[in-house]
Every structure is written in C-alpha cells, then in structure tokens.
C-alpha cells in the first residue's frame, strides 16, 4: 500500500513539475504549477485555522494571550507584510529609484515611534480595538462610532491595494484579463475570510510569515548567484548591482549572461536609479520627507497594527514583540530593493516592453530564468501576503461595524446571532466596495496603501498620542482634532480622485503637490494635534476618573 502511495505521489510530482515547467511565460497563459502551489497554500491556511480554531470571541481577539514574544513578533510581521510590502515596494523603487526608499524607511521607522510612544501604554490601557480605546478614553459614544467608521475607512483603503495585488497575481497565474482577475480574486479572498475569519488567526499568521519570507528570499539567492554577484547575503550583495546600474554594465562585461528573452545583462549608465530625488523621476526632496513622515505616523496609528498589542500577555511582552516584529519585517524590507535593482537591468532592453511595475517581483524572477516552480511559489507568496492582510482587515472592519458600531451604538440589545449576521454582511459589503475601487486602477499598490497610512496618521495617531500622553486632551478636543484631520484627508482625496477622473478643480496642481494622497499627513497630523490641544484648553477638562486611570494604570 505504502509503495502504491509513494508511486502515486512521485507520478503526480513528475506531472506537476512538467506542467509547471511548460507553463511559465511573462504573461498570457494559465500556469498549472503556480496555480497548484497557490491553492495548496490557501488550503494549508484553512487547515491550520481549523486545527487552532478560536474557542470564543475573547480568544479570537486576544489569541489566548499565551503566545511567545517571538511568535507574536512573527504575527505582527505577517499581519503587516501585505501586497504593498511583497509586491508594491519593489515596484516603487523600480519605478522611481531612490524615491521608493522613502516607503521602506517610512514603513519601518514608524515602529520605533509606535514602540517608544505607545505600545506598552496601549497594552496597559487594556482595550481590544482602536475604537474601544477612543470611546473609553474620550468618554464618548459618538467618538466610539467615529473611531469605528475611521477604522472601517482605513480598512477599505488599505484593502484596495491588496485586492489590486491579488488581481495582478491571479491575472498572472490564470492568464486572464485584470478585471476578471480582480473579480475572481475578490470572490476567493471573501470566501477565504468568511471560512477562516474566526479560525486560529495568530497561529496562521506565524505560518504565513514563514511562507511569505521563504518564497520571497529563495529567488534572490538564485538571481544573485546566476548573475555573478555576492549571493551568500543578497541583502548586501545587491549593493554592487546598484553601483553597476549607476556606472553601467557594458556588453563586454556581461560575459554571456542573458535574461529569459535573450537580452544581455547590460545597461547604459543610469545614475537616476540611485541618486536622490532625481529630476527624471519627477520626485522632490519635500515629497521624500513628507512620505517618510506620513508613513511613520500612519504606522503608529493603524488600527490593525495597534490591535496586535492587545494579544500579548504582558506590557513587557508587547514591547519586546515590537522588536521581534520589526526585525522580521526588516528581513523582507532589506530584500525588496534587490528585486527592483536586478529587475531594472534584466528589463533594461526596450524589447522587454512596458512591464506592470506592481508585478516586477515576479517578472524579475521570470526574466532571470528561475525555475517556474520557484516563480510560482513567489507568486503564491505574494497572494498569501495579500490574503493574510486582507482577511485580518476585513475581519477588523467587520467587527468595527458589528461590534463597535452596531452593537455598542445602534442596537445594544441585539442577539449574538444578529451580531454574527451583521459581521458577515459587513465583510461582504466591504469586499464589494474594495473590489470596485481596485478595478479603478488609480495608482500603484504601495501608493494606494500609503493613503490608508495618511488617513490613520491624521485621525487615529493624534487621538492615541494625546490620549496616552496628555490627560488634558478631552472629548471636545478629540472631536476637533478628528474634524481637522478629516478635512485635510477629504481635500486631498477629493483632488486625487477628481484628477484621476479628469475633473478639473481649482488649484489642482498646488493640492496635488502639497497635499498628495500618500503624504497629506505631513500637515494633517500636526493640524489635528493643534486643534485637539487648543479646543481641549478652551473646554471642560477631562473627567477625574479618566485622569486617575491614566496615572494609576497606564503610567505607573
């Protein structure tokens, strides 16, 4: 019997390898190998979810509070590493060189702020969601509702980029049109979320992290080895690739190294790839700084990131889990620029054509002639990254709707069955909205996700920062801060959408530059903080019980 099973597995594996090898092209055809890998990984996540299923709502939110610091760090990293990290970051650097590094710095440096200013205190405060904290700290049901709505808006904005990434990878795997790829991808991720929504999330996140990081890093070793660079540590070895792009690689030096289309591994000198805020990339010093700042404070204000600190047993573990989480995140962020640098040389010849930047990670592996199964694993890693984040965000958004908004504000006496129904309705409605927005194809994945960061930076971040560190911040001040932040956000997003839809608004160039949708928090956050402070000073002080709680529980 054993022999029959082994023979069957071997036969299946050989057919699988053959099908996968035959199927890889830059675009166009159904790719059997990658499809099988993708489906297998998704099934694995569901299986793990069933095994480590949460027993009740508290267990789901707090994941048992029995998870180790390293495990929690992996969960933080998996929760964080979305399509924007996996696909989007390399795309940004591929498309705008040094300017793209603003996203790398912004998305990692924000964790320092989060740790130093908030992580331990948030854990000590002891609420489960961002809206919970806002409603309690600012003693207002209205602000709780506003917090929930903001959390939903941020989840939707964040998911748009993820759906775009899922659509791109489904397009690549299935060889179909982008619109259909987004529709199918949305349906699959929705089904996945509804099935696995309450299943062992934290355990799954650890496994997802391992799959994401392995699928992302293996091709880098192969690429650097193949093209004769220091491959033992690709995150350092690609330094010579960057320098080669700057100084150029003559044909004579390519020594028979070619991409999968037969073009030599050569490039004319292109300092614009690495030089700071190069004119040819159309980006400026101001934009670089504004993006970094906005992403950093956005990181410290994202509800699903903050929420991770409630799932660790102690405040001390909350702090140490950030260190581990950031380290695990950095492994991917050190690696993403390698794809953009190698991809730049491999796609330098105009015959390669205009590649979709958001899929450059996969195209680079293909152009580097990497085995199709490994490319398939890479694409599956991209989808996993998007799935892990989307399912978390949809669940977070749906619970903000059903728990924070519906149960605590609209219908406090609704039955548990009704609450569950509302959570499911919320998930489906969010997925439809996100799918529609993803089809608009307004920007790169990383840029779309950056909008969510700016939104968090002008709303949640000021509320948490002042809520924790200044007992004088009161309900009226918080409301004023949210209004100021949202006004800036609305102005920026209105101008952005209008421009994309061809509607000419007055001073469009001014707003497009100074209030760009992925960095409006540079001014929005300080304005929100200022409004909060001024109005708080002029109105009734924070109740004694809140101040007492802050001193005795959070800062003692």
């Amino acid at each position, binding site marked *: 019997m054993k022999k029959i099973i082994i023979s069957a597995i071997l036969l299946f594996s050989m057919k699988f390898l053959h099908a996968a090898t035959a199927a890889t092209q830059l675009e166009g055809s159904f790719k059997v190998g990658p499809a099988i890998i993708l489906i297998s990984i998704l099934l694995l996540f569901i299986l793990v979810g069933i095994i480590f299923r949460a027993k009740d709502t508290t267990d789901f939110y707090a994941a048992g509070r029995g998870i180790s610091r390293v495990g929690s760090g992996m969960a933080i990293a998996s929760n964080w590493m979305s399509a924007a990290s996996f696909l989007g970051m390399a795309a940004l650097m591929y498309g705008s060189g*040094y300017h793209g*590094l603003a996203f*790398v*710095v912004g998305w*990692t*440096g924000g964790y*320092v*702020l989060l*740790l*130093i*200013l908030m992580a331990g205190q948030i854990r000590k405060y002891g609420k489960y969601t961002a809206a919970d904290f806002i409603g309690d700290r600012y003693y207002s049901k209205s602000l709780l509702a506003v917090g929930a709505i903001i959390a939903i808006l941020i989840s939707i904005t964040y998911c748009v980029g993820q759906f775009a990434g899922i659509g791109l990878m489904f397009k690549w795997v299935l060889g179909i049109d982008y619109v259909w790829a987004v529709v199918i991808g949305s349906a699959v991720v929705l089904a996945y979320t509804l099935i696995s929504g309450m299943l062992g999330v934290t355990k799954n996140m650890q496994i997802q992290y391992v799959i994401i990081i392995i699928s992302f890093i293996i091709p880098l070793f192969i690429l650097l080895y193949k093209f004769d660079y220091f491959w033992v540590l690709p995150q*350092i*070895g690609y*330094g010579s690739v*960057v320098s080669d792009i*700057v100084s*150029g690689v003559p*044909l*004579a030096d390519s020594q028979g190294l070619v991409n999968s*289309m*037969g*073009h*030599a591994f*050569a*490039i*004319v000198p*292109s300092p*614009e*790839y690495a*030089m*700071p805020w*190069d*004119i*040819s990339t159309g980006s400026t*010093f101001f934009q*670089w*700084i504004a993006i970094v700042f906005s992403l950093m404070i956005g990181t410290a204000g994202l509800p699903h990131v903050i929420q991770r600190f409630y799932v660790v047993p*102690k*405040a*001390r573990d909350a702090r*140490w889990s*950030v*260190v581990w989480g*950031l380290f695990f995140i*950095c492994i991917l*962020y*050190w690696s993403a620029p390698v794809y953009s640098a190698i991809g*730049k040389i491999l796609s330098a*010849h105009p*015959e390669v054509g205009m590649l979709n930047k958001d899929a450059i990670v996969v195209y680079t592996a293909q152009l580097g002639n990497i085995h199709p199964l490994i490319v398939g694993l890479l694409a599956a890693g991209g989808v996993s990254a998007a799935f892990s984040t989307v399912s978390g965000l949809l669940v977070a958004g749906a619970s903000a709707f059903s728990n924070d908004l519906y149960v605590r504000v609209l219908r406090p006496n609704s039955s548990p069955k009704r609450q569950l129904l509302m959570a499911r309705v919320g998930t489906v409605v969010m997925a439809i909205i996100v799918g529609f927005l993803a089809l608009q194809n307004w920007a790169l994945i990383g840029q779309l996700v950056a909008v969510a960061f700016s939104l968090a930076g002008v709303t949640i971040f000021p509320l948490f920062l002042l809520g924790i*560190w*200044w*007992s*004088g911040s009161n309900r009226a001040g918080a409301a004023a801060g949210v209004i100021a932040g949202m006004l800036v956000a609305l102005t920026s997003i209105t101008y952005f959408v209008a421009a994309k839809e061809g509607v000419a608004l007055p001073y469009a160039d001014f707003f497009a530059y100074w209030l760009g949708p992925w960095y409006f928090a540079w001014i929005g956050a300080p304005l929100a903080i200022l409004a909060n402070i001024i109005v708080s000073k002029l109105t009734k002080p924070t109740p*004694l019980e809140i101040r*007492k709680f*802050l*001193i005795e529980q959070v*800062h*003692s």
Partner: protein
Amino acid sequence: METKKDEYHISFFKPTTAPARANRNLALMLVIIWAVAVFGFQILLRVLEKPTPEPTLTEFESVWANVENGNASVEEMQTFAQSTLTVLSKVFLKADDRAVLDNAFTWAVFKIANDETREELAKAVSTFEEKSAEITDITNTEYIVMRDNLSVLAGSVIGLVPGDIRMSILPLELKTEYENGYSDENKTQTPAVMTKYLTHNQSVLTDTKFLGFPFHYFYTAVFLLIFFVGLCWLYCVRTDAIHKRLSVNDNM
C-alpha cells in the same frame, strides 16, 4: 502627583509619576536620535548635493548650437545622435520625452546618411516597423535578422562600434514618421529633456562606495533599518531596567 495643581494630571512635557518621567526622558532621547538619523542624513544629503552632468550632456551641449542652426559637421551630428540614443537607452524615460528624442535621433541618422544609404535605411526602418507590429514573439527569426541588419546599418552611420550596448536598442528608436523632419516644438524641447535625464544630484555621500553600495543608498536602504531594530532593542532593555528599578508592575 507631586503638587496639588498636578494632581491626576499627566503630560509628556510634565510627567507627574516617576515611571512616566523616566519613560519620557528615554523616549525623548531616542526620538531625537531617531529623527536626526532619519531626517538629518537626508537634509545633509540635500545640503551637500550638486547637480552633476553626465559626460554625455557635456558632449551634447558642445554640438547642440551647430545642430540647432544647421551648421553641424558629420562628426558633430554623430555626437548628437549618439547622445540622444544614450538617453533613449535609459531606465527611466517618460513617453513624451521619448517622442521628442525619437524625433531628434531619427532625423539625425537620416541627415547624416548619404543618399544611397538613406534610401536603404528608409526601406529597412519601414519593413522593420511592419514586422514589429506583426509579430507576437520577439524570438521570430525574421524579426531578429531585420533588427540586427538595421542595427549594423544605422550604427555605422552614427559611428557606433560593435559591442556598444546602444547598438541593440537603436533599431527600436528609429521611426518612419520622423525621417524627414525635426519639428520646431521637439527641437525646442530637446535641450531641456537632455538636461533632465543627464543631470543628477551627486555629492561625496553618493560617490563614496560602501560594501559595493553608493554610501547614501546603503545608509537609507540597509543601515537605517538595522538602526531602527537597534533603537527598539535599546528602548526595551532600558525600559526593563527602569521598571525594575522603580518596581513597575509589567505583568498586566
């Protein structure tokens, strides 16, 4: 809780408990270090940088006046064509700017060629364009032969030597629509386009190499991330020590 006025009041700038004060001091120190490391370096980069032209821009500028007023020699036209082709071979090039340079380059190639070669070139460019539109796979043998022949023919006209990477890009940048003229609009735009792609912000920080990287690139893409993890680690170690010293209950 040190004075009546401060009773049950806390702020980052006036922490009223010993743990909050210690935490504030540590946080303030680390935030300052973090801000200097992140933004200070980029400001330094900005202060030190100088717009630095590539040698190709200098060559272009040396011949541009004569090309513009129609007095350029064959050698000057060749320099002009080669410099535009260099920019056309670059990794970042906007579609509008490509159109301007395609016009300049194609016009220059046909201007340099003698009557006989011009006729041959026109035919080769036209048939290559037709073939390019027709094929779906660039490994098509006929396409490759046409491309390589055109490359050799036009390459010899502008003085490129075999082995020059630009030889393989050249056939794709010759357009029949630009064979006979260099529009005034494109001519006016050419110097600005060339300057845009051939001038870069460079300084000692970008020109110094470290572990194979341009130093500023290493600092931003590699070092800063290590630094962030280090700062977080330092914060945790110091906070653990402070909490131990002040008997803060961290088990909640």
